[in-house]
Every structure is written in structure tokens, then in C-alpha cells.
């Protein structure tokens, strides 16, 4: 079953708004796309459209939060993390304000709009900022749970959501919690760590690997910062082979974070499935996943390299 994490986000905002009158929401002229329009319709007095002005939106969100509000600010990942990076760094994160930045259309999922709209650097840009927590859910169920938890955790967050629909991975919501990676499949031969859309591709690849006699663990690392260091280090040393799959630049994403972690004890060999130092191009989401080798086939092939 597939559903839209963006829809889940919008509906969750409305739900939060019903019980908490200190939730405020901002957008930068993309509320219909980010689904904050659902909150705008339900609570018009607590919604502010800042127009096409991302830097203004981010700093205004910080200002509103000083009055005791938990403020969600949304637009496309490219414009939020790129255009307003310094406002995010120097105001929201440095001042440690209660602002949740929820970006949609992240990665290459904005598809045909092309490279100018595709954020494949957003996790790197956000992870490097102190105080900022970085979350990339893989489906609607985990989006709902993680957004709700963030709403009750003071301080800055960055969420990245895809444009399209995502397959439901997590049937149950109770184990989903910020900072806790989730084991989706146990296998002793290698471990695949993934976030966002690549979690599903990793599960498909693990099925194929199993047919070849290779049992892979698959872990959903929805929280890239703070990283679930204990669990990741444990699976790295247990299996000795780690593949990180992410729909992001190979530089500065989950792969970099895990490499930094396990380089300390050199507990595992690593492979990366990510976008290697190039800009995006136009195409459908499916075409682009295949063009940039962000698919089950590539994960499968790169995994086999461990065993040659």
C-alpha cells in the first residue's frame, strides 16, 4: 500500500493544532504542495503565508517561537535549506528556537522540474549545523509519529519528505521514535542502512540477495542526527559489511555520518549507493532513481561486491 508522507504531515499538523493552540505554521507560497494548506484551512489565524521569501519565513518563525509557540515552517527542500541556510544557522539553530523546518519535494523526487528544484545536498547542509536534528522518514506512519514527537521536543528540527507516495513500511507506530534506528530485517551476512525512499529499495534488494544465499539486515535510519550510534556500531561489527543507501549526495549524508562513526574501530567494509557528485536532471521519479542508480538493482549489485 502506498500513501503520501506530505498528506500525513498536513493531517498531523491539523491534529496537533486541535489540542495545542501554541502550534503555528508558516509557508512560502507552496502550502498546497507542502500540505500546510490543511492547517491554514483549519486554523487560519495561526497560519502565515510569507510569500516567496524563504529567509524571511525562517526568521519570522524564530520570532514567533519566542512568544511560546512551536512553529512549523515548510517549503520545498531546495529553497528551505539552500536559500535560507544562513537564517537557519545563525538564527534558528544558534538561538536554539522551537522551529521545525519540514521540507517536502526533497531529493530527486520533484522529478521533471529538474535540478534547480532537486535538493540532494539538504541533509549535508542541515547536519553540519549544531543543535539541528535531521529526520528522513520512509513512510507515512513514521512521518506521523516523528512529527508528533518533534512537536513535543523543544528546539530545531529538519525533516525531509518526498514529493510522491511511499510504500507503507512500518505497520505499527509504537516503536517509531526520534534517534532510534529500526531493524526491518535480520541477516548475519551484511547490513544495509537506509533512510527515506531507499528503505523500500533496500528491502527489495535484501529479498533478492536472500535468493543468492546472502542474508542482509536492513535498518531504517530515519534519524540521521542524532545518529543511533550504538545500534549502527553493533550491526557494523556483527556483520562486518555495511552498505548505506540514500537518495542524496554521497557527500555529507547518512553514508558520511556512518563512515565517520565506524572509522573509529574500522569494524566494517563499506559501500555507498548515493548520488556521486553530479547535478540532477529532468525525468520521472522512477526514471531518475534508475538513472542515478538509486534502486534495488544497484543495491543488490553493490552488495554482491562484498562477497566476490
Amino acid at each position, binding site marked *: 500500500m502506498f500513501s503520501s508522507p506530505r498528506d500525513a504531515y498536513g493531517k498531523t499538523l491539523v491534529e496537533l493544532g486541535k489540542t495545542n493552540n501554541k502550534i503555528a505554521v508558516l509557508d512560502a507560497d507552496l502550502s498546497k504542495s507542502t500540505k500546510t494548506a490543511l492547517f491554514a484551512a483549519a486554523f487560519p489565524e495561526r497560519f502565515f503565508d510569507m510569500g516567496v521569501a524563504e*529567509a524571511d519565513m525562517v526568521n519570522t*518563525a524564530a520570532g514567533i517561537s519566542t512568544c511560546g509557540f512551536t512553529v512549523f515552517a515548510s517549503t520545498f527542500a531546495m529553497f528551505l535549506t539552500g536559500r535560507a541556510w544562513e537564517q537557519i544557522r545563525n538564527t534558528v539553530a*544558534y538561538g536554539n528556537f522551537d522551529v521545525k523546518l519540514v521540507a517536502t519535494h526533497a531529493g530527486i523526487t520533484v522529478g521533471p522540474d529538474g535540478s534547480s528544484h532537486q535538493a540532494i545536498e539538504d541533509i549535508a547542509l542541515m547536519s553540519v549545523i549544531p543543535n539541528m536534528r535531521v529526520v528522513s522518514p520512509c513512510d507515512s506512519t513514521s512521518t506521523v509519529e516523528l512529527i508528533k514527537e518533534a512537536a513535543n521536543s523543544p528546539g530545531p528540527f529538519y525533516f525531509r519528505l518526498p514529493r510522491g507516495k511511499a510504500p507503507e513500511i512500518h505497520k505499527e507506530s509504537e516503536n517509531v521514535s526520534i534517534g532510534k534506528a529500526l531493524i526491518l530485517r535480520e541477516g548475519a551476512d551484511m547490513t544495509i542502512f537506509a533512510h527515506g525512499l531507499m528503505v523500500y529499495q533496500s528491502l527489495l534488494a535484501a529479498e533478492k540477495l536472500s535468493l543468492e544465499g546472502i542474508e542482509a539486515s536492513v535498518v531504517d535510519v530515519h534519524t540521521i542526527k542524532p545518529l543511533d550510534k550504538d545500534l549502527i556500531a553493533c550491526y557494523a561489527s556483527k556483520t562486518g559489511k555495511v552498505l548505506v543507501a540514500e537518495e542524496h549526495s554521497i557527500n555529507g549524508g547518512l553514508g558520511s555520518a556512518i563512515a565517520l562513526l565506524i572509522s573509529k574501530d574500522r569494524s566494517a567494509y563499506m559501500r555507498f549507493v548515493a548520488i556521486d557528485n553530479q547535478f540532477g536532471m529532468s525525468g520521472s521519479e522512477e526514471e531518475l532513481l534508475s538513472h542515478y542508480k538509486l534502486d534495488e538493482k544497484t543495491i543488490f549489485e553493490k552488495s554482491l561486491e562484498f562477497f566476490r
Partner: protein
Amino acid sequence: MEIESLKSLSCKLRKDIIRMIYLAGSGHPGGSLSVIDIMTVIFFGDILRYRADQPKWPQRDRFVLSKGHAAPALYAVLSEAGFFPKEDLWTLRKLGSTLHGHPFNLDTPGVEAPTGSLGQGLSIAHGMALGLKLLKQDSRVFAILGDGEIEEGNIWEAAMSAGFYKSGNLTAIIDYNHLQIDGYIHSVKSPEPIPDKFKAFLWDVIEIDGHDHSMILNTLKNASQRAIDGPPLAVIAHTVKGKGVSFMEDCVDWHGVAPNKEQYEKAMDLLNG
């Protein structure tokens, strides 16, 4: 506080500013001296409602120093108001001090937001204004902007927002001292005509002498009476960079340089009159 007392307080705070920067060995005297008369009136002229022993008092008015490099002026008024001890001033910019080179809310009581990276304070202040209106609170927000700073695009995004949202509880004061790091603002990239630009973004605009305490006081008292759902107010305050220390006045070289011992003593003599 009476006008004469405000004037002598400004003079005292000027000496604090010079001493702070001299002891730090770095900092921004020019733009701190140009805004200090305005900030004296805001904090001690019964304009800003605050409780120094309760910096986060929810009913407080808000003050944002968008031109954060004038931090010495902010620290001087905050310590004078009782937010922290006067001795802290002499630790400015030193490792481990609560007084950073530019304002930082988490370390300095009374500082509302981190500022100093130019162009960001007006958006933050406007966010506060929107938040206060959401709370149906009659508190006011005052922001001080530099004239060079308004070359930043983020200022005009905020100006557009505040005009559109009719944030009449917001007052922006532009410290119009005509100098920025590279020289006179009209020779770098003139932001003129400043009043017309704010008017075009649906603000009310008033021009004053930023060193005339009674004019500042009357203007800001009136600002505090304005409808909170009307146009925001821009106060163009004509000032002199380095005001009060004759050899620093209207001199670009004193934007971001600390006085040496001789210059420090000379400045103090001048301020002692």
C-alpha cells in the same frame, strides 16, 4: 527619567562603550556611539516594558538590535538596567565571557535573539510582533537597523511582510549615520530614498534627529500608542557615527577598530567634558 538625566546617562554609557572596546582590544565604536542616545531613551525613557530580574517576563516589550555589531551599546544599557553586573562589561569578547562579540540570546540576559549577521533582525522582530498579536497581547517590538544593513534583501522581505500583515506593534528605527565599512553609504550602494521605500511597503515613516533625546522620546512614546493592527512605523533617525568622541565622528576608520591607550584616554577626556 527627565531629559537632562537621559542625556547625562547617555554620556555615561558612551564611556562604558569606549572602555569595553578598549579593554577588549576589538569591537565597533562608531555604530555603538551613534545608537546609544536612541537606546538610552528606549530603555530608560519609560518606552520599553521589561523586568531586569525576570528577562523572560511574558508581558515584556521586545527589543532587537539587528545591527548586532553595536553590541557594546546593548550591553551597556542592559547592565545599566540591571540585567547583569557592570563588571561583566569589562570581559567583552574574551573567552568564556557571557558577552560575545555580537549579541547571543542564550548567554546574555536581556538579549532576545542572536544578531550580527546583518539583515536578519527585522524578520525576527516581525515574527515577535506576529506572535504577540496571536497572544492578543499589547506588547510592542522595537528593532534598530543599520543604514548599511538595509542593503540586505532579507530586510525588504521583512518590510513587505510587516506592511502586509499590518503589524502596527512593530517599530523599526534606522540608525542613519551614513557610513558603512567601505565608506559613505551613498558611495557604496545607496539605499536611498529610504523613506519612500518603507512607504512603498505600506509603513508609516517619520524622520528625527537621533541625538535629540526629547525628539526620540516623543517619537517613541507616540509609537507605543499606535494601533497594533495598523501600519508598522519606520523611524529614520539621523545620527553621526562615533557621536560624542570628536576624533571618531563621521570617520569610517572607527567602524570596527578599538582605541589604543592614548586614544582611549583622549576619548574619556572628551566624554568627561
